[in-house]
Structure formats: C-alpha cells, structure tokens
C-alpha cells in the first residue's frame, strides 16, 4: 500500500488512486512524424529497473492526475532524477 502525496490532498493511501502507467514523452504532432516514429512513440512504454515517472489519478479524492517518481526495485517514491534525487 503505497503512500502517495497528492499536491492538493497530501499523503494518501494508494487505494484512493488509479494507476495510469508510466509517463511517456509528450504526444508529438502527428504531421511531423513518419509511421515508424509514431509507432515508436505509441508503443514504447518506459519500463526501467529503477526510478520511473508514473501517472496516478486521485479518483477517490480530488480527481487530480498527478505524477510521481517510483523506484521499481523498492517501491520508494523518490525525487525526479534531475532534482538530484
């Protein structure tokens, strides 16, 4: 049972959230990508051993979609890598 910090509600139990998968790069403008690039963007989901940025929906709370960095080895919620975490 992870403890996830919602920016509006504070730390809340995982059971209040719906998992939304790892964060992918921003959706590109389809006009600027060929088929292979688009397929790559569409189907390549980050799945690292270690910190991964994830989306969670605070469905049984305020309704915010938020992101966290979770270490897949430990379930620890960690700082974003560029924050020096």
């Amino acid at each position, binding site marked *: 049972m992870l403890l996830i910090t919602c920016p509006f509600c504070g730390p809340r139990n995982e059971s209040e959230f719906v998992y939304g998968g790892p964060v992918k790069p921003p959706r590109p403008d389809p006009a600027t990508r060929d088929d292979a690039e688009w*397929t790559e963007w*569409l189907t390549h989901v980050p799945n690292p051993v270690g910190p991964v940025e994830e989306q969670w929906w605070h469905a049984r709370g305020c309704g915010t979609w938020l992101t966290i960095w979770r270490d897949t080895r430990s379930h620890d*919620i960690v700082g974003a890598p560029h924050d020096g975490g």
Partner: protein
Amino acid sequence: MAGKRLAKGGRIDHDRPLRFTFNGRAYSGLAGDTLASALLANGLRLTARSFKYHRPRGIVGAGVEEPSALVELTGADAAGNLQATTVPLTDGLEARSVNCWPSPAFDLGAVAQLAGRFIPAGFYYKTFKWPNWQLYAPAIRRAAGLAAAPRTPPAEGRYEARYGHCDLLIAGAGPAGLMAAQVAARAGLRVMIVDEGTEPGGALLSRRLQIAGAPALQWVEEAVAELAALPDVIHLQQATVWACREHNYLMATERAPERPGLMERSWRIRAGHVITATGAMERAIPFGNNDRPGVMLASAVQSYVNRYAVLPGRRAVIFANNNSAYAVAADLLAAGGQVVAIIDSRADVPEAARALVPQLTVRAGHVVISAHGARALRGVRIAPLAGGPEETLACDLLAVSGGWNPAVHLWSQSRSTLRYDEALAAFLPDRPAQAFSAAGAAAGAFALEDALRSGAEVAARIANVAVPEIPDAQDLPYAIAPHWRVEAARGKAFLDLQNDVTVDDVHLALREGYSDVELVKRYTTAGMGIDQGKTGNVNVIGTVALARGLEPGAVGTTTFRAPWTPVSFGAIAGMRDGQLALPWRHTPVTQWNLDRGAVMYEAGARWRRPGYFPRPGETMQEAVDRECRAVRFGVGVYDGSPLGKFELKGRCVGRFLDFLYSNIMSSLTPGNGRYGLMLSDDGLIMDDGVCFRLDAGRWMISTSTGHAEAIHSHMEEQLQMRCPGWNVLITPVTSQWTNATICGPQARAVMEALGTDIDLSPEAFPFMSLRDGHVAGLPARVVRVSFTGELSFEVNVAPRHMRELWDRVMEAGADFGILPVGSEASHVLRVEKGFLSLGHEVDGTVDAHDLGMGWVMSRKKDDYLGKRAVAIRRAGSHGGAGRRELVGVLPEPDCPIPEGAPLTPGGRREATEGFVTACVWSVVQERWVGLALLENGHARQGETAYVRLKGGAVIPVRVSAPCHYDPDGQRLRS
C-alpha cells in the same frame, strides 16, 4: 502420565477450573492455560500425528513457533489447523487432533510410516506427474489429513477493520518493546504498541528475573500502567502485526477485542517509524527420532514451569549448545523437577552457566544421538561429540536448546537486510530499507539488561531525546557454539516437524542439484505450513551450510513473507462481506421492478437492471418475445438510468471533444447531438455513445454503462495531462439524471397522453435532438435517441422525480398496452438493428472500418485520438484485406447459434475465420438472426459461411448486412 500441575505459582488462576474436551474425552484446566499447557497438566503426551509419516507427535513449543501440536476446534468456535500452544483455554472448548483418525493413539494412517523410507523429498512431484499434479493433489491433500476450513461462518459475532496512524509502531511488548514505548511516549510521540501474547511481558512471563531489584513482571506492570495513562498511546494485546507492506504500512489482527459480538479486528496501520521488538525463538537440534513426544524446546519447558505451573516431565535431560538452557535447568529444579544431566555439545562450558546449577551433572562435549520410546520418550542415547562409548539415560522429558534466532520476519518483510553473526550463530537485522529499527532479542540483545538498553536507545534516537538510565537487570550472558546436527544420529532426524522434512531429505535435494536454499525449501517443503518453519528454518540453512562447506551467512535465508502467523480471512475482510464488499447500484424503480417479478441482472458497473419480466407460466423466451413485440408494434418503456452521463462545460469543450471522438462534435448546434466513437490512441474502440450540445459552452455526453468510470478517467487524463490550460470542466452526472425511455410506434401518443410543453412533432423535435421542458408536470430533459431502432423519447428527470414519472408513464401507456422492457429484449432489438454492443462486436481488435462505420472516422480533422494508429494498421494490412468484418448471419436451416461459436472455412476443422457475436429470435423476421465478425465479411454478403460447433456439428449461415430490420432507419426517425 508424564506431566503434572504444580500446586502454586504461574500466571494462572488455580481457583478457576475450566472444562474442555480433547478427542472426545473430558479434561479440566485452569484459567490462564493454553490448550497445550492444560493438556500437559493432564499428563497428555501424544497430541497429534505428523503430516506425511503419521508419526506420533507431542507438544514441542509454547507459542507461535509450535510445529507439531496442531488441533482443530469444533462446536461454536470451529476452526482448523490451530497450534494448541496459541489457543487460550476457555470453558467448554472442544478440540481434536489433526492428521489422525480415529485417535492419535490408534491411527490407521500410521501404516504410512512403514512405507516412510519410500517417500523421500520430491516423491510426490516425481510420482504424480502424469498427466498433471493437479489431478492427484486433492486426494493426496485429503489423505494428508490437515483440517478442513469450517463449512459455515460462525453463527454469532462479526469482524471489523480499522485504520491506525502513529509516529511509532512497536511490535512486541516484551522488555525491549515496553522500554522503547516508555521512552517514545514520554517524548510525546504517538505510539502504538502491539503484542501477540495474552498479556504483556514477552519472554519475562516465562522466566524468573529481576528488574531494579524487584520481580521483572512488576516492572512490566508499572510500565504498562504508565503507558495506559498517556493519551497518545494505543496498546493492543492478543494482536499480531503479521505483515509489513510498502511505506511502513502494516497489517495487524486483534484476536480478542474487548467489544461484545466482535470476534476479531483487523488494523491497517501507517507508522512513521517501526521498531521490531519481536524477541527471539529457540531452535531445535536435529538428532535421531528427535520428534518423539517428550522432546521439547528448553524455553517451552521453562514457560510451562514458570508461566503455567506445569511440570512437563518427571525426569528431564537437557541438551544444549548454549547458556540459556542452564536457567531452564535451574527453574526445573526450583519447581521440584528432577534433572538427570545437562548434555552440552560444547567442550568448554562457561563457568557462569555452571554456577546457575552447581549441583547438576554437566556432560560437556557430549551430544544426544537418538531418542527412545514409541509414543512417548523413555530415554536418550548420548555419546561424546568426538566419538566414543555411548550410554543411555532414562528420562521422560528432553529439553533441547540449539540456540536462538531473532524473530526477523517483520524486519525482513520490509525488505530490510540481514547479516549472519558468527558469535551469536544467528541472522540479525542489518540495514533497514524503510523507517525500521530492531530492538532487544530481535536485534540480538539476548540478555535482559542489553534488551532494555537496546529498546531505550532505539526509541531515544527516533524521538531525538537523551537515553534514560537503564534499570538494573541481572541475566546470564549468552554464549553459543553452533551445532547444526548430530553426525552420528540414528533414525530420522527432523528439521521441520510439521512437514516431516529430515536431514536426509535436504541431502537428497542437494544431491539432485537443488543447491539454492530457496530451491531446497520448495523441493523438500521445509519451512512451509502453519508454523512457517520457525523452529527449523535456520537448522535447514545450517544443514545446507555443512553439506556444501559454506558459512550459514553464505547460504542465506529464504524470503520472509507475510503472514507471520495464520490470519483468518474474516479479519482481513472486516465488515466488507456480501453486499458491503460489492454493493449493487440501484435506480429509483428497482423496487417497482422487483414487485413485478423482474429477473434482475447486473448491467455492468454493479448496476442492477431487470433482465425480463416473466408472467406466471411464461418461459424466458416467451417473456422476451412479448416485450420485443410491444416495442416493435406498440410501445415499451425501459429504465435507462445506468447509462454513464457527463456534462462538459467551458470555452474549449468543442475542441476537446473533437480530440476525444473520432468524428466532429464541435460543429453541433445547441439542442442537437451525434453518435460517436471514442478511440484510444492505439486505435482501439474504447466506447460509443451520444454527444449533445446544450448551449454555447455546455455539452452532455453518454457512455456505455460499464465504461463510465474508465471514460471519466480517460477524459480527465487527456484534459489534465495532455491539454493543460484548456478551458474544460468535466462533471459526472450519471446519478443526477435518471430516465424512462419510451419506445415504439406509439411512443409519441404516450408522450402526448403524459402531457408535455415540448412540441413533439418530428419537424420541431427531430431524431438526435434534445429539448428541455416538462413531462407529466415534472421538469424534464427529453432526448430523441434510439437504441432499439424505434421512435424513442428518453425522458430524463432528477432521481427524486423518477418514481413518479415511471408511475405516470405506466398509467398513460396503459391504453396503448405499454410494457416494461428488460435488458434481454433490448439485446434482441439492437441485434435486429445491427447496433453495436461493446464486448460483443467490439473486442479490442476491430476498428470502425471493420464495423462498416468508416463514416465515423473524420477525414476533415488533422488529428484525434487513434487516427494515426488506425491509418498505420490499415496501411499495413493492404487496406484491410483479411480483417474480420461485421456482418449479419441467417442460420440455414433456421436454428439458434450459441454466442461465440466459431466460423471456419467450409465448416472444416481449420483455423477460424471469425465467430458469431450474437444470435436472437427476431419477432419481426420470425426467425433466428445473428451478427458475426467474419474475415473479409463485407465482400461476402450473399455467400454462405459455416459455423463449426464443438463436437464437429456444422451450421451453414447466409451472410447478410448487419441490419436485419428497417435498414433506412425510417422508424427511428419517424
């Protein structure tokens, strides 16, 4: 009769006898007894038969470590596979042994013992492998004879669950736990202290020690009283912390909460910090026939003598490799017991240990080779460790101490690491992975003063206060020379008594290549079962270490998993059983439906809807036909309330909907709507529904009943994560709008009879438009959509008006023969029309083109969710060749086809080329009609395809357009 009750002493009430039965015979115990201590006090030795070999077994331990004395409770407290050592004795308790029939003394299964040497480790896996293990497992498990789960829930009482929050959770109220709780609570921390024993004190309850010059239990009493007076301390007894999950989330079960009618209470606790003050457990020493009733853990003997005032045997021998057993010998003597000798495998016994029992014979450098006696211990054979002459000592009790294992289970469940400590010959907590600390014996601080200091220091560090003065506490320092097994052992030397795993089994596993300790565990089953190998696991590691020439630390431990002790399912569920676990969602006319004898279905998302309304003597098919005819030829009404509904508001809604739907919604004018598909970005159909514009900035959309939450999540995700700054507000209004959908050629007449201020003419109120007004005097939003193919008015009102609306519709419709329509008829009507149903025709592979709905895929929009993916997929399949496409099917000869039946080329036994998604009796065609997904189906209309049923029967079907009725849609537009 070996054991006996002492005249005084212990933590029991000598003046309060309790009656109980064991294997059908009546006995008497005392208040404060466990079932095990009462059995020993009655002189019972043989209490169970073992799992695999049906060997006679007695009581070995005194608590949760007990491997062998398993019982089943019957009567009001029925429960299976309990340890006799953890069952508090109550008046009228009825218990019986497991694994033996008809009684442990005369056990028919004991013939298995004769075949014992033919049942080595892995025997079952090797023997019962064809065609598969699952075929044999039930019979083998029955023969093994562990108790079955009670067939019915307890007649009285209930469970509950609650959350707990604290700065510090302490597992264990022994000396270290209580000391830590005192320090932390005095510093102002919110503390929970949770202990699984019937009373606090931990190991102190079983020992005769002093703290600050007074009996240790007096210190315990004072500490508990001080904690009870503090406002932010929760102290639970008979409560086990049995699991640690992520981020210091712990599960605990209170087995005897003080509330009438409450059997157990489950706690889910989020703790800022956790201290495991869970103590340590003694391990056995493997030697020949070390499972004979009368061979016990030395600490258990001490517990029975001091805590329960029971002498478990008349003539005791003690076999040890460490100091702790010397205190046991001293306590046995003090209680009037006889101790023949202490057999110590160490050549050099520390003087401090000998000084505890100067009058006793100590056979240093000796070991017990084997135990004698069949159903009860009669003597032991001893020999010098280095080899030499053997001798026999007569005894009826052997107290064994192979050393101490800190209870690191909870610590390890938190993924915190362990290290092997040479000096203590034990695995100790090493590096914490969460906010965890260990204290007392659980951290290897075995002597009392060390345990107290460890508790104080750990708590002081967490609370950020100075370490207080530690009270004086004399205890013998711990010292051990590990002895993993007796080399010269004769007879089976058991490592795991519960699963009948011997030293030989471990050696066999190693010979067969299962060298990793996790594989040894799985191959031999050592450490599985109710006790999870609490007494034997480290001996298995030691045995592997000896055989492989490694240090125990290099062998490592198996993974510690929850639960630490068995947990009842009832406690986990709490009050969430039946309706509370998965509540139904009802509309305001549910009761009306039930009153009319509706057969209720789940309509998705836990909504209860009527399936059909059978009349007396009517079959389901007859009822469904009647309801369908009403809609096709007269008028029907259904409750469409469960459909998902959302209102979207804001300047950017049109643009947002154009991104979500495959067709264009932004061009709708107020009052008008459109059917649309929502795709995921990988081009799969997520949902279908209608979208209406209410005014310039407000829109209303519907989703299928079962997808409402998923579509809500999807829309919010797209809005918040992909469209930041867009002015859109999404409000779910499924429960704010309920509706009666009046459908059929007479629908307009019924609407007129109801009375409305809305102009109902097709010119003023055409198909796919929406009008706000009043119906039957109630404020209503009327929508002209149709899921049946007939003229329909969906009359939406607030839930508080729904029941009145429904009654008025039935009254107004009576002259027209209106009938309520269930979901079975709705299904028939939509199949006749070739309308989609998600989950039937849409299965995660088809796209809009396959469904003949290419028109819904906008070519004008540059981009929308799924557009690019569908284009790429269709380009990759050469414009869609070979795809399964939606068609109608007409069985020839006319007969029903089971939903999901495969279509194969020519009906031959070949790979399928599609399947029938639905098949219904059509009241307008008066024949069976169906829908199917068929390879290249669009081009095959007019041809014959073939359904191939299981068993080989073939049904030819004529391929047609999906719509079997009114293909131009004149009726629904009328």
